[in-house]
C-alpha cells in the first residue's frame, strides 16, 4: 500500500540528477580558487621572507623586496578609507533613517547602484581628470586614494544601509515612543546594533581597495620610487601596480618574485576578508535578538 510507484521512482531519479548537478557546480566554483591559491603558494612561497617584505627592490626590480609597494598600498588604503567611510556612512544614515521614499531618493539609490557598476578603468580616467588635473593634486597618494574612495563608496553605502535596515523597526518605534528624536534613536539604538555590519562592509572595502590596479595607474602609482612616501602628495609604489609592472612591463624578473608579490597581495585580501568574517561572527554572538 505504501510502496513506491513508478511515478515516485521517476521523481527520485530527477531529484538525484538535480542534486548531483548542483553539487558539481559548487565544486566547479571552488576549484579555480584552490588552483589560484595553490599555484601562488607553490611558485611564490619560496620568495617570501622577512627580507622580501622589508627591503626595497633592487636591480631594476628584478631582485630585492617589496617594502615601498607594501607601505604604499597601506597609505593608499588608509587615505581612501578616511575619505570614503565618513561620506559613505553619513549618506547611508541619511538614506536609511531620514530620507522620505520619493522619486529623488529612488534616483539616488539608482545612482549608487550604477556607480558600483562603473568599470574601474573609467574611475581611473575620472580620477585623473578630476583630482590630478582639475584639482591640481598631481599624481599623488591623495589623488589615487580619492579615486579609490569614489570607486568604493557604493560598497560602503550599500553595506551600511543594509546593516542599518537589519535593525528591527520595533527598536526604533520603542525609542520614538519614549520621545527620542531620530538622532537619539540612531545614536543609542540603531548604530550600536548595526556597527558590526558597517565594519564588515568597511573591511571588505579595504580588501577591494588594496587589490585595485586601474584606478591608481594614472592617479598616483609609480613603477619605481626610491623612497617611502612621506605625505599624501607623494607618488608611491603599490603592490597591485608593482605586480602589473614586473609581470608585463619589465623583462628579466624571476618568476618566483612575481608570484611572491601576487601571494602577498592575495594574502592581504584574504586576511582582510577573514578578519571581516571573524569580526562579524564575534559581534553577532554579542547580539541578543
Amino acid at each position, binding site marked *: 500500500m505504501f510502496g513506491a510507484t513508478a511515478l515516485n521512482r521517476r521523481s527520485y531519479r530527477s531529484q538525484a540528477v538535480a542534486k548531483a548537478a548542483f553539487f558539481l557546480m559548487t565544486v566547479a566554483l571552488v576549484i579555480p580558487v584552490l588552483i589560484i591559491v595553490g599555484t601562488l603558494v607553490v611558485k611564490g612561497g619560496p620568495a617570501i621572507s622577512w627580507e622580501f617584505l622589508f627591503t626595497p627592490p633592487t636591480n631594476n626590480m628584478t631582485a630585492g623586496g617589496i617594502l615601498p609597494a607594501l607601505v604604499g598600498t597601506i597609505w593608499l588604503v588608509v587615505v581612501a578609507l578616511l575619505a570614503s567611510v565618513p561620506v559613505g556612512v553619513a549618506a547611508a544614515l541619511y538614506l536609511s533613517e531620514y530620507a522620505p521614499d520619493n522619486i529623488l531618493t529612488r534616483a539616488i539609490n539608482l545612482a549608487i547602484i550604477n556607480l558600483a557598476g562603473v568599470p574601474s578603468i573609467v574611475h581611473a580616467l575620472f580620477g585623473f581628470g578630476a583630482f590630478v588635473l582639475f584639482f591640481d593634486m598631481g599624481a599623488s597618494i591623495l589623488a589615487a586614494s580619492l579615486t579609490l574612495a569614489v570607486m568604493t563608496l557604493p560598497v560602503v553605502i550599500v553595506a551600511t544601509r543594509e546593516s542599518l535596515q537589519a535593525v*528591527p523597526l520595533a*527598536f526604533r*518605534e520603542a525609542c*520614538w*515612543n*519614549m*520621545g527620542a528624536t531620530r538622532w537619539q534613536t540612531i545614536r543609542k539604538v540603531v548604530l550600536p546594533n548595526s556597527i558590526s555590519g558597517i565594519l564588515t562592509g568597511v573591511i571588505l572595502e579595504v580588501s577591494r581597495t588594496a587589490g585595485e590596479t586601474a584606478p591608481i595607474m594614472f592617479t598616483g602609482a609609480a613603477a619605481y620610487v626610491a623612497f617611502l612616501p612621506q605625505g599624501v602628495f607623494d607618488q608611491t609604489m603599490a603592490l597591485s601596480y608593482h605586480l602589473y609592472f614586473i609581470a608585463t612591463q619589465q623583462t628579466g624578473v624571476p618568476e618566483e618574485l612575481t608570484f611572491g608579490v601576487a601571494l602577498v597581495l592575495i594574502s592581504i585580501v584574504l586576511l582582510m576578508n577573514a578578519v571581516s568574517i571573524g569580526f562579524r561572527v564575534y559581534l553577532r554572538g554579542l547580539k*541578543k535578538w
Partner: protein
Amino acid sequence: MADGGRGDYAIETRGLNLWYGDFQALFDVDLGVKQGIITSMIGPSGCGKTTLLRTCNRIIERLGYVRTTGSVTVLGNDIFGDDVELVQVRKKIGMVFQRPNPLPISIRENVLFGFRLHEARLRKITAAEEHEVLESSLRQVLLWDTVKDRLDKPATGLSLEEQQKLCIARLLPVKPEVLLMDEPCSALDPAGTEAVEEMIWRLRGEYTILVVTHNMAQARRASDECVFMLLGRIIEHGRTEEVFLAPECQETADYIEGRYG
C-alpha cells in the same frame, strides 16, 4: 505646551478622518476616553482600532503618507496644534506594542532609557535617584521581585510576559498620563496574558489606559468602558458590561456573539 482646561476626557476626538493615501481608514470618529479608567477597543481586523490608537500620539505620521482632518485633544490640548512638540506628546502618551519590543540592552538601561534621555540633559541625575526610579517603575509592573537580581542582564533574555511588563515599566519614569496599548497580550500565553492583564488593572486610576484587543473575553473582564469599531467608524461606546450584555446596535451584538470577526 500650555495646559488647556481638562474635562472628564483624557482623549477626545472630534470629526476625525484619516486617510492612508487614497484609502480612508477612519470616518468621523467622535470618541471621548474618560480619565483614569481602562477603555478597550474591539472590532474585526482592519476596522481602524490600531489606526485610531496610533493617531492619539501621532506615531502614525511616521508612515509619511497619512492625512488627517478633525481634531484630537489629549489632556485638554490639541495634539495637532502648531506649537505642539512631538517629543512632549510622546512623553505624556506612552505606547505599548503588540509584540514586546525591549531594546537589546540591559533591563536597567531599558527602564532608564527614556528617563536618561529626558532628564539627564537638564540636570545631573544621581545613581540613587536612578535606582529609585528603576525600582518604583519595576514594582508598578510587578516585575521587581523577578528581575531585581539580574538588572544588568539583557532584557531580550526575559520571557515574553516579562518583556511586555518591562516595555510598560520603561514608559513610567517619564511620567506619562495616558498609556496606549495595541493588543498587549496577543503574543503571550494564557498565563502571561492573565499576569499582564492583572498588572494593567493595577495601573488603572493612575493612568488613563486605552487598549486595543482582539480578545473579547479580555475586553470584558479587564476594561471599564468598551468601544466597538467597524469599518473605520465607532459603532458603539459604553460601559463594558452594557456593551456586552445589552448592546444597542445589531452589528455589535453580532460581533460579540462571534457571527463575524
